């Protein structure tokens, strides 16, 4: 099986990798680029643990082929903090104890950030609807929703 050379931008950095056409973008991020923040919970688009931004859209990276990423701009959880400075969402998830095992957390953070960029003041039901494709097996969703609301309020205050 011949591999395909792929060039893309990940978190602002130009990257290159060799992908088997069957490998997903998630496989490529994790196994070729050592970006292991995005997780594989299901591999079938149901859980959102693999959420990344692809050309400005929130997607499940398990449902994208690595070879499709040619020329694409990708952002992952690894690009969320600014050096040692956590993003407000990351801080609020910690403050509200919105995680237990943490497996779902990168996906929730990437998805929540995409929501707040589109809608800085979402209602609770808008948050729940937007995050319906992100599953958490341990924390329950109330703390996650509250963390997102609190981060949104702080970000609106700062703006």
């Amino acid at each position, binding site marked *: 099986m011949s591999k395909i050379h792929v060039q893309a931008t990940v978190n602002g950095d130009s990257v290159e990798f060799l992908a088997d*056409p069957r490998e997903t973008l998630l496989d490529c991020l994790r196994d070729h680029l050592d970006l292991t923040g995005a997780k594989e919970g299901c591999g079938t688009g149901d859980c959102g643990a693999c959420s990344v931004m692809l050309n400005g859209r*929130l*997607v499940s990276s398990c*449902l994208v082929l690595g070879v499709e990423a*040619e020329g694409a701009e990708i952002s992952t959880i690894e690009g969320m903090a600014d050096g040692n400075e956590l993003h407000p969402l990351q801080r609020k998830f910690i403050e509200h104890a919105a995680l237990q095992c943490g497996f779902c957390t990168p996906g929730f953070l990437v998805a929540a950030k995409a929501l707040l960029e589109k809608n800085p003041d979402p209602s609770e039901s808008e948050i729940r609807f937007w995050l319906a494709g992100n599953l958490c097996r341990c924390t329950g969703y109330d703390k996650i929703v509250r963390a997102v609301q609190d981060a949104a309020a702080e970000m609106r205050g700062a703006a």
Partner: protein
Amino acid sequence: MRYHAPATFDEAIAIAAGASGVTRYLAGGTDVLVQLRAGMVTPDDLIDLKKIPGTHDITRLPDGGWRIGIAVSGAELGAHAELVADWPGVVEGMELVGSTQVQGRATLTGNLCNGSPAADSVPGLVAAGATVTIQGPNGTRELPVEQVPVKPGKTALEPGEIITAITLPARGKSAGDAYLRFIPRTEMDIAVVGCAVSLVLDGDKVTAARISLGAVAPTVLLVQDCADAIIGTTLDDAALDKLAAAASAAAKPISDKRGPKEFRVDVAGVLARRAAKIAYERAKA
């Protein structure tokens, strides 16, 4: 598996026509990749259509209709205010497909060509009178959406044929459409029944209507008896009763884990009634 990313439809058709094994086209990949990962379908040739220029465009046609590129995602469709104003039912059907993440990728054409009887965007397209443009080794043809699926998982496309665009007719004045589905959860589930209604009014009176049912037969249904039940009426209670009865009569579902036959027959009538009321209100607005 060979991955191809052709730059034109002609090139894509040439690849498909020359392929001897299992061939799949790649739009949003939300069906293709799930089937690949599950080992259900491993294509020998996978032809990515998203790099073809124009496939991401939504264009207003000179007659007031719309041409929707085959790579337009649900998220892009929902963000197009003018299209949403014309065809809210078509758009809400597509927006019910999957999560935010799935919306970032999934397309109308993929939903149609995957061939699921429960595909959520298809009844809305059928009620709207949408057509697809098909290009293949023997030229180009146009087909109404309701003629594309022929049985679960199978379409009327011949080997080497590709859908190159979906066309929605001009909406015109005093017209509205709506799509409703029943699922046991509030989102992220497969339709037990789906129903789309599109209608045109003259004053309070319905002058034209198309009603479509999903998930209650091997393929999507366009039900003329439902249209006849409300054309010429003001959608009063008697007309709604006739509509619901016609929808239930047309529904020929199977019983499965998502719902028994009797329940689906009943729900088809309930959804037809509700969707018609919403379409009517939208036409009045």
